[in-house]
């Protein structure tokens, strides 16, 4: 396996999707060729040594001509620096890393449920499911703070022919409330569903609870602080269920886990 470490990757496009949400398109053929949905990349935000560590981002989209996209919200110094990146800049991007989503059985219906920046990997996932020749129902339930944050993303899903339903915190688009509240509205309990979700922990806990109740298999994509992203630092530990003093590592064993592998508290 060869990785994209030898030279930095060129930023092909930088888009602002709302005031604090950005999308970078980066030329990284090695990543684009091998990435699986749910995997992530580690991006170096600073040219100097501060901030020191790379930042993990889900792979948002890949294209046949070798580009990779990340979608991110500005929450601190690293993302602020990345937001200032413009076309023609070079970034050190390293990946693809981690274990992505897997499809349990081909013909169950699939619900992708994303909240906030957890929506990022779902677009890649949706495309990949469609390309795999999947013939069941495929829907995306998407939660966001407000309409501005979700508008253009929803279009991207619709463009692929994926049915979407939206929930916003302020009610400015779709359902006024939580994305979990959309589930039983759009997922017929009489049907077999599998759920693939990414978003804030409390949201995924809510999704997992419903899936447990309905006996639907569910995969969740976890976030932790990461130093290396590749299993070397052991910094990204999370507890295993049943034995709180036994740990698994988000960057290697995940970021995507079966809901049963996670401690919900």
């Amino acid at each position: 396996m060869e990785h994209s470490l030898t030279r930095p990757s060129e930023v092909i496009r930088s888009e602002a999707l709302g005031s604090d949400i950005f999308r970078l398109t980066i030329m990284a053929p090695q990543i684009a060729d091998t990435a699986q949905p749910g995997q992530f990349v580690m991006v170096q935000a600073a040219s100097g040594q501060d901030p020191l560590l790379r930042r993990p981002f889900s792979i948002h989209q890949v294209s046949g001509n070798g580009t990779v996209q990340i979608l991110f919200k500005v929450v601190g110094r690293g993302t602020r620096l990345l937001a200032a990146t413009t076309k023609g800049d070079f970034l050190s991007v390293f990946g693809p890393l981690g274990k992505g989503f897997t499809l349990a059985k081909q013909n169950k219906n699939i619900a992708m449920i994303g909240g906030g920046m957890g929506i990022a990997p779902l677009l890649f996932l949706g495309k990949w499911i469609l390309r795999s020749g999947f013939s069941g129902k495929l829907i995306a339930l998407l939660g966001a703070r407000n309409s501005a944050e979700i508008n253009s993303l929803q279009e991207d899903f619709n463009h692929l022919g994926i049915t979407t339903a939206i929930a916003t915190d302020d009610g400015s688009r779709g359902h006024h409330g939580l994305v979990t509240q959309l589930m039983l509205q759009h997922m017929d309990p009489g049907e077999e569903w599998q759920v693939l979700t990414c978003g804030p922990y409390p949201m995924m806990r809510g999704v997992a609870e419903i899936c447990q109740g309905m006996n639907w298999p569910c995969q969740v994509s976890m976030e932790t602080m990461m130093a290396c992203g590749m299993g070397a630092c052991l910094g990204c530990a999370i507890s295993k269920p049943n034995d709180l003093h036994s740990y698994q590592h988000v960057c290697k064993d995940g970021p995507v886990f079966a809901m049963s592998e996670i401690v919900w508290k």
Partner: protein
Amino acid sequence: MEIEKPNLRVKIGSLNLQNPVMTASGTFGYGEEFASYVNLHRLGAVVVKGISMQPRPGNPPPRIVETACGMLNAIGLENVGAERFLAEKLPYLIKANATVIVNVLGDSIDDYQALAERLHGNDGISALEINISCPNVKKGGVAFGTNPEMAQKVTEAVRKATDLPIIVKLTPNVTDITAIAKAVEAGGADGVSLINTLLGMAIDSKTRRPVLANVVGGLSGPAVKPVALRMVWQVAQAVEIPVVGIGGICSAEDAIEFLIAGATAIEVGTANFINPRTTEDILVGISDYLKENKMDSIQKLIGSLQT
């Protein structure tokens, strides 16, 4: 005089290294994690994650936090234990033709000794690095490495257990690191490596809680380099045995500074997280430096500081 291929070989006791570039324990996994980025057999040595007799789960999360030009970690010495290391991890490294140094840790002097005995005699282990920054549970949790007597006793115990080369890894959280270095030299160490992490802490002002579940953690990365360089220089003057320099090394220039200060070899730690290829890049950079400065051997660089 054109130097075509400078001689990079260095020696620590009976341990011959093809070059002075090693990995720092806990930052390079068990080597295999880096196999797609680095040619493991080209490194001076791979120092693996610290091993204890029994497997350890490590500390609860959060275990790491970034700080200015550095990071704090409180991994809590999570490791697979000696048996699984020998059965599952070592074979890969042997196949990859890597020179392997095992970093060992324990709760008591007996622990260290038993572990050294267990590792002794296994093909493919070239040396032991003794991590004495661990708390001595029998002495109320004071780190072995903060007390010259305890440090010497651990060294002596390991020395009895094996004739493998022994490098004792020193903690920087002491008033006089040269006293500890001399004590482990007297205890029979073939070399010392330094520094381990500086004890630090981070607080989240929003929640008013420590960021790390363990409250305190070890500081590493470029931030600590000036402290590490000073200590390496002091220790290199205080002992006769070789010194391995560690702390914030990110580039060939950093590595060269440690060699100039008196280090016989160096270990790359946190930098592996930022660029997994750092060790090989440093190897090339050292070689280039020697050529540019018309030095036919790394020995000309080691300890060349003019004060």
